[in-house]
């Protein structure tokens, strides 16, 4: 039944111990690098695809996209591979190469854990025209309905975030109201049974728009299609935005 215990072996030398460990370590390292390099292109492609899909999702009408990040002067320049996602702005262009809008990352505490989402900002309409949840641990069947509930998603067909006259702040910061009580374009109709998650989404959007839109809006020109055809560029080379 049980295998007999092996008899105690003699003391191994330090050398044999080191040899075993380092030897195995070397082989392992090589194996990992090999697999990593072999899978990298596929993974990166998949990630970029996912991001692009998300961007297109929140920016209806966009056909191509390009990622930007602010430089030290606050100017938006095409993003490099290692840019941090908090500052990144994805610009979406339609088939004619015109700027449709910008997609921005935002995150905040939800009912259970941090919710991360991507929202599309239509520059001309000064409205949020789409929201996509990237990451959440909200309760299935309750909180996670914010991703799927058509009624709730309808809030984001055109959620007003127009800037105040001075351009420094938002005229009507976003607010969440009880289900069915939406009266103004800057209000979000809450979701029954998921008040907390709806409130959280509202507050994530409010905080993010208040903080970022004035600055971005001031530099809209940076996102206009430049010399190259934007559709050609591989957006989001960093590949970090979508999945952890």
């Amino acid at each position, binding site marked *: 039944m049980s295998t007999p215990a092996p008899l105690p072996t003699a003391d191994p030398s330090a050398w044999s111990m080191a040899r075993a460990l380092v030897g195995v370590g070397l082989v392992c390292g090589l194996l*990992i690098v090999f697999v990593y390099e072999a899978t990298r292109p596929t993974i990166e492609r998949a990630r970029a695809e996912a991001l692009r899909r998300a961007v297109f999702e929140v920016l209806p009408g966009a056909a191509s996209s390009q990622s930007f990040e602010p430089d030290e002067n606050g100017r938006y320049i095409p993003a490099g591979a290692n840019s941090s996602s908090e500052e990144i702005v994805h610009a979406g262009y339609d088939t004619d190469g015109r700027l449709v809008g910008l997609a921005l990352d935002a*995150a*905040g*505490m939800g*009912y259970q*854990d941090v919710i991360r989402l991507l929202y599309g900002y239509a520059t001309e309409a000064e409205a949020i025209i789409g929201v996509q949840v990237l990451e959440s641990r909200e309760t299935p069947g309750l909180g996670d309905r914010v991703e799927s509930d058509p009624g709730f998603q309808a809030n984001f067909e055109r959620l007003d975030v127009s800037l105040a006259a001075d351009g420094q702040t938002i005229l009507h910061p976003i607010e969440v109201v009880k289900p069915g009580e939406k009266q103004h374009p800057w209000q979000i109709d809450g979701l029954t049974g998921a008040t*907390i998650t709806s*409130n959280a989404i509202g507050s994530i959007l409010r905080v993010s728009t208040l903080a970022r839109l004035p600055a971005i809006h001031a530099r809209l020109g940076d996102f206009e299609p430049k010399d190259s055809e934007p559709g050609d560029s591989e957006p989001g080379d960093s590949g970090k935005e979508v999945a*952890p």
Partner: protein
Amino acid sequence: MPDQGLGSIFLNACLINNFVLAYFLGLCPFLGVSNRLETAVRMGGAVSFVMLVASVCSFGIERVLVAIDAPYLRLISFIVVIASTVQLVEMFIRKTSPALFRSLGIFLPLITTNCAILGLALFQTNKGYDFAQSIAYALGAGAGFTLALVLMAGLREKLELAPVPDPVRGTALALVLAGILSMAFMGFAGLGV
């Protein structure tokens, strides 16, 4: 990542997203060492301590890996560095304080390769916490683990005297308790929103 307050990170890791009861991490020691309150407390202490060590280590490693652009080594270096650091600490404790070693040290080797520890390292990296946040996260996770373990130990000690039916005794009972505890912890959901 938004600027989460340290207190909020702590509470989140400790109560709302308790490592054991919400993330299912570290179940082996949770189920194995929650029979006696005394060992539970000591195990909790040991895990908290290793979590702190792991948090600091993995924070450092992540910086190095980013610098040499080798994210694929993350997992293997986390586990190796955490394991060796803990071993170093264990040797140090054994040398300097035999009493502490007897109460904490004997658990250390058991938990270096444990989900909760590695999970902590991975989560804090994924969440992109800065150093202070990482520490708060580790402290919260450790406190939460200890809390769960201690509550569980109290319940199991109490149930030891109860006429629990035979097929239930043991792991199944512990799981039911964990489930009810987990339901009870749902009351903390949304704290600090």
